[in-house]
């Protein structure tokens, strides 16, 4: 279905080719997973499939890319629209219409599909992706997961034979991601659709893949069956890392396969990491788990609504220093609203927010940044200078700190970021760390991060984990709003789950995560009922045992 034959792609002004003499064959009806660190050429490969590279982006392509027998050299993306559907990384950036139904029909109109067929396909797609109730909703009012499903639906209505998705689940909560992936798998199995997915969160996708393509950097590529590639892949989900630790050959890819092998591992391990075994939950929703330093912020009876939609209901919370608190819950559960209330961006209807003795709504921003700092969902919103060095200098001035403070912080967080680079040209992870440095330079006691792992590869995530640990160790309070259960398993000491604006669970990470099927990390699922959360924990325990 898709054939790349000795393809090299070089962007204008680029020193090295983004893809270098790569060949790849994706047969019809396969789900092909593309993995690799940021900047290895995943998006280039994906966009070459429907001809956006080089027709739209510019650059030189040598070799041939054929899709369903059509050479992308002779066919522009619009001429391939009936064969290839593309879902971009940020679904809302591609929305054309203003309501869901029209958005689904847009592509079909250009393909000249008969009105009766269009009508039927729109209805089918609405059902397939569970969008029926949203059909006349304006696109701007949808949640992240709903937008993602609409974008997939808009690509599907044209009945393409190939569907290309760039990180389709990065903005979704675990449940929403599972829904989308289940829908995709159904399409592959029932309709013989060929699917190409690029994804950082392998734990969500790898068990569905028929083929894995690993981009290893320098424009090189390696492909094979998932088990083959995962054996030596630089990027691996927790289940594979656990398998490597335990020496399982070939590595299991799903929790189910791993559980069958887990019997060999369990006898070697105690019933859980020491702190989880010793520290049972204290009663009461506001009881903080260990370690609990002094209280940095208190939220009392917080209520918040947007128009008729309640966002937060009677939230009580105490944030302590030395804690890494993970705020979880499905898209639209009120996580961002709670963070917004803590920094005074949104006005609560009733209730009290007290951050280090300050009311965030009534405090001057200059004073507030010393108590609490937030890295927003799009870190680029914080940045506006034309170079990293200028951004750092501005941050020093904003925070009233001696010149060079931010640059020194950044050098610790991300030493490789060049000062002359434009913030837009940084990778997603580097940009996040720059924004974090800009926030941290004011030395806030409480640091909030909204969806920090969106678009981060494993390496960047590892770096973030160590930075967050260090912050908590230095007595900061850290709050993460995130969907990434694996990150939470590694770094969080306390987990709060929100649903429809209410706190439905609050307690030590081991307990809350292990107790919930939706939020349990892979290691917890594999080793249940023992209370293990992450591979490093297990590794440390094995070392101790010897």
């Amino acid at each position: 279905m898709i054939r790349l034959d000795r393809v090299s792609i070089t962007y204008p002004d680029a020193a090295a080719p983004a893809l270098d003499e790569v060949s790849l064959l994706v047969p019809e009806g396969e789900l092909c997973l593309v993995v690799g660190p940021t900047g290895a050429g995943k998006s280039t490969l994906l966009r070459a499939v429907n001809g956006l590279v080089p027709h739209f982006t510019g650059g030189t392509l040598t070799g041939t890319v054929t899709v369903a027998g059509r050479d992308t050299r002779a066919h522009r993306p619009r001429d391939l629209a009936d064969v290839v559907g593309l879902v971009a990384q940020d679904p809302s950036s591609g929305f054309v219409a203003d309501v869901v139904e029209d958005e689904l029909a847009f592509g079909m109109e250009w393909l000249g599909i008969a009105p009766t067929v269009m009508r039927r396909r729109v209805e089918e797609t609405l059902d397939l992706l569970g969008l029926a109730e949203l059909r006349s909703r304006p696109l701007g009012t949808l949640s992240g997961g709903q937008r993602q499903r609409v974008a997939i639906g808009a690509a599907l209505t044209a009945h393409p034979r190939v569907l290309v998705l760039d990180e389709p689940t990065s903005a979704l909560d675990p449940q929403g991601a599972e829904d989308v992936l289940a829908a995709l798998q159904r399409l592959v199995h029932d309709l013989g659709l060929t699917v190409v997915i690029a994804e950082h969160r392998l734990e969500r996708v790898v068990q569905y893949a028929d083929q894995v393509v690993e981009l290893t950097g320098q424009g090189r590529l390696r492909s094979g069956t998932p088990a083959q590639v995962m054996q030596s892949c630089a990027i691996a989900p927790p289940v594979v890392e656990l398998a490597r630790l335990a020496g399982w050959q070939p590595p299991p890819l799903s929790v189910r396969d791993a559980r069958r092998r887990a019997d060999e591992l369990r006898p070697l391990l105690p019933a859980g990491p020491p702190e989880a075994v010793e520290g049972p939950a204290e009663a009461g929703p506001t009881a903080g788990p260990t370690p609990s330093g002094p209280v940095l912020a208190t939220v009392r009876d917080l209520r918040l609504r947007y128009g008729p939609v309640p966002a937060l209901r009677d939230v009580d919370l105490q944030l302590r220093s030395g804690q890494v608190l993970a705020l979880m819950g499905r898209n639209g559960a009120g996580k961002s609203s709670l963070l917004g209330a803590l920094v005074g961006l949104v006005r609560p209807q009733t209730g009290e927010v007290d951050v280090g003795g300050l009311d965030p709504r009534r405090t001057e921003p200059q004073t507030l940044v010393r108590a609490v700092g937030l890295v927003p969902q799009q870190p680029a919103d914080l940045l506006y200078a034309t170079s990293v060095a200028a951004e750092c200098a501005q941050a020093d001035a904003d925070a009233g700190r001696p010149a060079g403070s931010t640059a020194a912080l950044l050098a610790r967080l991300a030493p490789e970021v060049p000062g002359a680079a434009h913030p837009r040209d940084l990778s997603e992870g580097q940009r996040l760390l720059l924004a974090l440095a800009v926030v941290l330079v004011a030395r806030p006691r409480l640091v909030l991060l909204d969806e920090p792992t969106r678009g981060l590869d494993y390496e960047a995530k590892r770096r973030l984990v160590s930075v967050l640990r260090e912050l908590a160790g230095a007595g900061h309070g850290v709050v993460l709003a995130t969907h990434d259960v694996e990150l939470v398993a590694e770094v969080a000491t306390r987990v709060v789950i929100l649903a429809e604006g209410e706190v439905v669970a609050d307690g030590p990470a081991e307990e809350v995560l292990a107790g919930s099927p939706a939020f349990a990390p892979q290691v917890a699922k594999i080793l249940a009922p023992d209370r293990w959360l992450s591979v490093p924990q297990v590794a440390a325990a094995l070392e101790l045992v010897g």
Partner: protein
Amino acid sequence: MTSPAQRVQRLLEPRLLHPGAWWLWALALAAAATRTTNPVVLLLLVAAAGVVVAARRSTAPWSRSFVAFVLAGAVLLAVRMAFAALVMDTAPGGTVLVTLPEVGLPAWLAGVRLGGAVTAEGLVFALYQGLQLLAVLACVGAANALADPRRLLRSVPGALYEVGVALVVALTYAPRLVEDALRVRAAQRLRGRAPSGLRGLARTAVPVLEGGLASSLDLAAAMDSRGFARAGDVPVRFRRATGLLVLAGLVGVAIGLFGLLGGGTLPAAGAPLVAAGVAVALTGALLAGRRSRRTRYRPDPWSLPEWATVGCGVAAAAVVLLAAARWPAAMDPAGRVPLVLPELPLPVLAALLVAAAPAVLTPPPPLPAAALRRPTPAVPAGAPA
């Protein structure tokens, strides 16, 4: 067999009327308003438009624009009357209401005065003309309130469809830019400085514009990969020719309408120009439509209520036009000396009733969608799934 009662019921089932019908109806009423300065007729015209808007507008955000347009008209009216009283020396007349102290102006400013006598005739003249403007604005406001401008753009002729989509996207983009600006302003607060002054503006504008540029590139890529502007087997030159034909025709229509409505320099050329323009534009659209492979999803239907609406508007306009020729004194009282009470010819009253008839002849709008756009929070949070 369906009985007549059932058929009527089916025609009046709740749905949104074709936006083109509302615009044609409103433009016909606006044309009528330009043909008379009779204050009673003009006020009744505004009332007719208001009745229809009140009865048939949807719950969408733009449906409140009627009041805004009428208020704008009222402001213009007030300004115009103030000017008439203080500055302009337009209408003759002997009924001096009050004499203001006059400022002597040089002779070359003939026709302009500052202060001096304020005559009742002058004020009434300004009032009538201001009312005319208000009525035209009210008609446009009614169309705006009744028909989503974006839906109207969706039904542009095939040859202009690409332009139409570009406009729709632009219309959707403006509010998104505002949302982005709000978000970035909120983020700037997080850096410890309330964004104010010129530097605050730069701090907000740079990320918003950069982000806007990046996302419009994304949008262009998405539209390209979804087949936008896919030509099928139509040669490029043919497409360009038909597009040009339609555009030229529409320009002709616009100039012709200007002549017809303005009644100024080229009234004679008005009607033929409109006719020729319509013919040219239709030819272009039909030619393009025949060769185009593009189809339309759920096009707005055009059935009896649409015809009735357009018919009501056109009939009312025709009667007013005829009355203006038959009873010039009654229909154009502006500038008459001495002042008389305006009269209302009976056929015109009947015509204005017809103009308001779409309030009952059209199907009511469907019930409001369960979820309306809610105010954007500073930190975007999705609606509950």
